[in-house]
């Protein structure tokens, strides 16, 4: 199996590479945590791309049940069909709707299965998947068949830390925490996204960005994905060259800040800061 490394459009730090490769070798789910916008979800896609396989995504919502990942028994349709005298009702398997996990288990290739934002679901959700992720098999009660994975998929699980995950579940995972990238890594990341960006603009944009992250008391710190959006705006808007440069004079708020700052209280705070700065002079 090919080892996972940084790709042309995704920069992975060595520790992340190692965690991914360990998870692949040990055939264990990889649990990824980190600040929002540090590329957790993107990672799964890149792993799939880098080892040349497909990806099945299972996005978790607060109402998602573990069972939905396996299969669902569509009783309502069956009831309706029975009223209509449809002959399909004889075979119960007609009403079994396959879930994402089943899909992944059936694949002929070793594929990547992304379970996105597992912390959104109910607190018991991870516990309900213990056996399924461990043994990579489950039982369909309605049809009495046992489904087991043809090829154990590479399972990537992301979490935003909204809920604590149960210990029994954690024990079965490999864990990696994506740190907020440091400046040089950030530079690489931006370069990957905008290969043609001018050095000067990049360095000034990063100055603004990291300064902004330093501002104490921001409700939501801008993250990598916001930086990327912001630079995209800067480039597409063709702003005057010096606009980033001027900022320390009388602009505590960077131009086109809407992409960076997502909270109006934060905007107000920055404006107050700017006011105080000016008055200080």
């Amino acid at each position, binding site marked *: 199996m090919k080892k996972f490394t940084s790709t042309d459009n995704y920069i992975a730090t*060595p*520790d992340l590479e*190692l*965690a991914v*490769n*360990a998870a692949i*070798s*040990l055939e*264990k789910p990889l*649990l990824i*945590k980190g600040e929002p916008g540090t590329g957790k979800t993107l990672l799964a896609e890149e792993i799939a791309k880098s080892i040349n396989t497909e990806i099945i995504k299972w996005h978790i919502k607060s109402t998602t049940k573990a069972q939905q990942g396996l299969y669902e028994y569509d009783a309502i349709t069956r009831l309706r069909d029975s009223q209509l005298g449809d002959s399909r009702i004889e075979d119960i398997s007609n009403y079994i709707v396959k879930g994402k996990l089943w899909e992944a288990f059936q694949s002929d290739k070793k594929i990547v299965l992304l379970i996105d934002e597992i912390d959104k679901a109910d*607190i018991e959700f991870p516990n309900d998947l213990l056996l399924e992720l461990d043994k990579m098999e489950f039982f369909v009660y309605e049809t009495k068949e046992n489904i087991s994975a043809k090829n154990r998929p590479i399972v990537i699980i992301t979490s935003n*830390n*909204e*809920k*604590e*995950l149960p*210990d029994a579940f*954690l*024990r079965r*995972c*490999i*864990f*990696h*925490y994506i*740190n907020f990238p440091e400046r040089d890594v950030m530079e690489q990341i931006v370069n990957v996204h905008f290969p043609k960006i001018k050095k000067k603009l990049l360095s000034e944009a990063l100055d603004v960005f990291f300064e902004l992250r330093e501002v104490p008391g921001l409700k939501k710190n801008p993250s990598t994905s916001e930086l990327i959006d912001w630079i995209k705006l800067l480039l597409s808007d063709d702003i005057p060259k010096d606009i980033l440069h001027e900022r320390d004079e009388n602009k505590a708020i960077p131009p086109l800040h809407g992409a960076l700052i997502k909270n109006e209280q934060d905007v107000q705070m920055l404006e107050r800061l700017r006011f105080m700065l000016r008055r200080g002079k």
Partner: protein
Amino acid sequence: MLIDFFLTLKKSGIKTTLKELLDLIKALHLGVIKFKTEDFYYLSRSIMVKDEKYFDRFDRAFSIFFNGMSDLDLEFLQNEIPEEWLRKQFEKTLSKEDRDKIKSLKDLEELMKKFMETFNEQRERHQGGDKWIGTGGTSPFGAYGSNPFGIRVGQDGNRNFSAAKVWDKRKYMNLDDDVEIGTRNIKVVLKKLRKFTRVPGDEELDIDQTIRKTSDNGGYVDIVLKPERKNQVKVLLFFDVGGSMDPYIRLCEELFSAAKYEFKNMEYFYFHNFVYEGVWRNNERREEVVNLDDIINKYSSDYKIIFVGDASMGIYEITHINGSIEHYNDKPGESYFKRIQNHFDKLVWLNPIPREDWDYSQSIDYTRFLTENKMYNFTIDGVNQAVRYLSK
């Protein structure tokens, strides 16, 4: 060797299990890493530690473990610290002057050779001295030594060189739950207080009963309803807003916003240093005093009481009539406190002062006694314990 490592981690309070140790061994067998200490660090971390709040503990344990070199199995050392890595450490740290200072060892190769020889000779723990690998000596090997040509084999911070290793940097220090506390963390903890009970009035469909009744009916749908489940936990929060609490305002705000989000039945009051006959509803408008009697009459005994305060004051503020620094109180503060305590079933006190300092303050000690030992440190861990007690 790895078992010792495992035990060191266990000892430092990281929740890791045998299963994870076996995984680590398996990963080493599968050759996930080449022999590089840094890779070993990352690999063992991602297998043994499942929460970033333990990263700092892991870093410390790792550092302690690799500092205690002489306790190590030598075979492991030879296998796990490859020559290439050591050489790289050398090249990073040596300047020409350093090299000149060393007369006894002519060049890098020789030092390397000597290093390996020393490993083979050394069979017991060693500290000081000028030859063996250990700590604090003038030998070129080991940590904390004064030989400018030394090989640093793990030490906290940098002494002579800049060969800082990842685990010595302790970048995850503020993720440890004894240190950091944030709104989200508190929310997660407070969630454990949730108590779902069925309240009459609101109704939702009882599917099981509906199916049963319907089949009893021979297929005619008979819908059964049941009361909806709601989070019924009730909380009263009392915040100390005295001057000594100023450094903890942010902490209190975080607890407050987390609690407000989590509980519908939550009321909060302010006091200064200790509770007397009245508390404030609004810290800015202190003239609006809420009588303690009213609170006790209004809120039923199943409200959970959380005091937040540093309990740092003159002891007479608790024990004496007229002890309050702001007004004349007819009865000592402790009698008011006891009235609250007698009325409500569960009471805890969260104290932001670090636990290890409590014994040195008379008033903290006394307040702790009054709370019947239900004073907890205002860290995630402490809040966790408090919540566990409250939800019992």
